[in-house]
């Protein structure tokens, strides 16, 4: 047959061109005049259209009408023939149902963020990749997630978002960054017993209940430390010997098999090394800070007078970065939107990239010759010329986001489904979870009404092209 002189996708047109192909009406008009008259055309057209028409009628058109009808009927599982007319009852109930209101709110968040973010990312990546030789490689990598299912995306991002920083890469990264700023204390979770002579201090940590003078020794007894949490270099705890101008302390794990006596350093009780101990004067000011030795001893030298309080600094007990609960109730929607953006950015890059490639070179050249810089060329030449393509990308994403279902259904599990709910998910849950077909139909109709503007836009576009 050879290479056909056809127009549409054979040479990768930008979306503009693909659509304007509908406009190749001129030859058709001519042919229409030449066409032999007669009713056989109609019969023939019917034969070609019939199979598609039958399926569309039975599974798209009739169900759509029936769904609209059902949205005004009471219709629950088990009573399929009792379709009593209930007017707008389902619609009224919809707007007082907290789950649906949450779904509508979340859909609004999706619509307000995802299409704009993805179109913006796509524009940025398309402009940047245009400047390097390996642009195709970058585009393929970014585009690849478009080929996989929402389910696979959901599994992939559940792994990324894992709350435990040992297992989720995002929390592991954030945790490493947080540790670099201020790490967890060595004795997170440690506590004190009531009679131990220590009490929780203002501003965190633990302080002695009784004051110490120069020459004295304080016992800083901690409990609730697991054996494996004690550093390996720890040795038998002992009280330091201090001179008259010194204050001493011992930080130790006040526990041994069998319990032991509270507040007393005993055989087999380990010192706690590397604990930060502060010496606080009567005004409440920290006058010195020391770290404990492997036997738990601390000695403040060249100390005069008193009284002092000793405090185990709050940093000893800092719990550190716990891991963000990305898929928990409060962050699930933004987290899922993030996964969606990862999936769809490639779509925007490729479509906008094709639009960029199809821009008239002479116009860009003319702008440069006239002395416009990169930004001016982009702002006043590229962007206006690209606007239709950006519009197509944005509207495509808008429709997809309005109907979003799979990725939420896969990523928000259990109770989080209520918090991350979207309209399409609520429709599924109402119709097929709660088997309330009437209310489910009403939610479907709501979704339908939301896409009607896009439908009108498509028809206008078609009419303009013809």
């Amino acid at each position, binding site marked *: 047959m050879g290479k056909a002189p056809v127009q549409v996708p054979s040479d990768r047109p930008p979306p503009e061109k693909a659509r304007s192909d509908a406009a190749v009406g001129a030859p058709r008009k001519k042919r229409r005049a030449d066409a032999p008259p007669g009713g056989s055309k109609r019969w023939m057209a019917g034969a070609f259209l019939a199979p598609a028409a039958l399926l569309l009628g039975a599974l798209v058109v009739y169900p759509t009408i029936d769904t609209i009808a059902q949205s005004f009927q009471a219709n629950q599982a088990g009573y399929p023939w009792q379709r009593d007319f209930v007017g707008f009852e389902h619609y009224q109930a919809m707007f007082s149902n907290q789950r649906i209101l949450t779904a509508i709110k979340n859909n609004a968040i999706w619509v307000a963020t995802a299409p704009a973010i993805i179109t913006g990312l796509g524009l940025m990546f398309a402009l940047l990749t245009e400047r390097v030789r390996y642009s195709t490689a970058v585009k393929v990598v970014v585009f690849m997630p478009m*080929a996989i299912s929402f389910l696979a995306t959901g599994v992939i991002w559940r792994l990324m978002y894992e709350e435990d920083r040992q297992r989720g890469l995002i929390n592991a990264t954030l945790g490493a960054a947080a540790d670099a700023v201020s790490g967890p204390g060595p004795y997170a979770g440690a506590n004190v017993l009531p009679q131990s002579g220590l009490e929780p201090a203002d501003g965190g940590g633990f302080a002695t209940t009784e004051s110490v003078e120069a020459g004295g020794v304080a016992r800083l007894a901690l409990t609730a430390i697991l054996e494996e949490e004690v550093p390996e270099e720890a040795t038998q705890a002992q009280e330091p010997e201090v001179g008259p101008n010194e204050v001493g302390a011992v930080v130790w794990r006040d526990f041994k098999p069998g319990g032991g006596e509270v507040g007393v350093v005993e055989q087999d009780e380990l010192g706690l090394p590397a604990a930060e101990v502060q010496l606080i004067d009567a005004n409440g000011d920290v006058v010195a800070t020391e770290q404990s030795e492997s036997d738990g001893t601390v000695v403040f030298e060249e100390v005069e007078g008193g009284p002092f309080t000793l405090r185990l600094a709050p940093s000893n007990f800092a719990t550190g970065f716990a891991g963000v609960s990305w898929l928990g109730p409060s962050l699930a929607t933004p987290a899922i939107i993030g996964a969606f953006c990862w999936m769809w950015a490639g779509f925007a890059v490729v479509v906008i990239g094709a639009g960029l490639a199809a821009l008239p070179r002479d116009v860009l050249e003319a702008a440069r010759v006239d002395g416009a810089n990169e930004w001016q060329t982009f702002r006043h030449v590229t962007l206006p010329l690209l606007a239709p393509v950006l519009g197509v990308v944005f509207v495509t994403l808008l429709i997809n986001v309005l109907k979003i279902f799979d990725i939420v259904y896969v990523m928000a599990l259990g109770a989080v489904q209520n918090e991350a709910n979207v309209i399409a998910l609520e429709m599924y849950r109402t119709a097929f979870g709660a088997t309330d077909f009437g209310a489910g139909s009403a939610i479907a109709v709501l979704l339908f009404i939301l896409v009607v503007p896009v439908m009108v836009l498509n028809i206008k576009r078609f009419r303009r092209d013809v």
Partner: protein
Amino acid sequence: MGAVDLDIAGTEPQTRAGRIARALGRGPLHVFLILIALFWMTPTFGLLVTSFRRVADASRTGWWTAISEPRQLTLDPYRQILENDNIVRGLLNTLYITVPSVLLVVFLAALAAYAFAWIDFKGRDALFVFVIMLLVVPLQMALIPAARLFGDIGIFGTTWAAIAFHVAFGLPFAIFLLRNFFIGIPHELLEAARIDGASEWQIFSRIILPLGMPAIASLLIFQFLWVWNDLLVGLVFTAGEASPITVVIREQMRQFGSNLDVIAPGAFLSMIVPLIVFFAFQRYFVQGLLAGSVK
């Protein structure tokens, strides 16, 4: 992706010094693009690595620890799920659903698109506008009545129900795409065939289908990925032993952590086919995407 990586002519500096200065100035650009590429690959790579780990390892440590400790990697999860009837059946069901739906959509849509493009009949444009309207109708509008209809004719819960529904909801886009392509075929070819006495069917099968191959290929790829990756239709219309892989894996996700040795390799197996199709026919996929960014 040929045309896209052309540089804008005339912007290349001519001297060697100029080129070096430019290359250095672009350092941040290269770093940024490489970081982007890494960022986009990492999550998928994470699933790949996870799919080769044991649950015992995966419940304690992150997948990245397996890079420095390759002993963690094992083929066991894949061995196990290939013996797992649910997963294997799910993959086969996905195949059984996808192949017929894709072929049927393309064939039925090609027939209809030919009529819309090349047969003159009253009300043609109005009917085509109706097809355009159907483009954006959400699946949700048809789920309940279609489920009842399938129940009445006794195919609810089977792969046939999913196939029929996929075909029906694939048609508007397919007709739209093919009609817009067919209409660009030079009318002289058809006129000549008509004058020679060819029947409409002969014109369709001997001229339109071969010439329409580029668009048909795009549609095949597009529809293939769409049906293969579907979750909702499978969820609603198939049950038990007829469920596609996406539904089977979703059921396992209730206990995400403990079922990870099924979920991760299962998800990866379900991705392999679309990825192969994507890499092998990328060009057509992109074309379909460009032509059809309206759905």
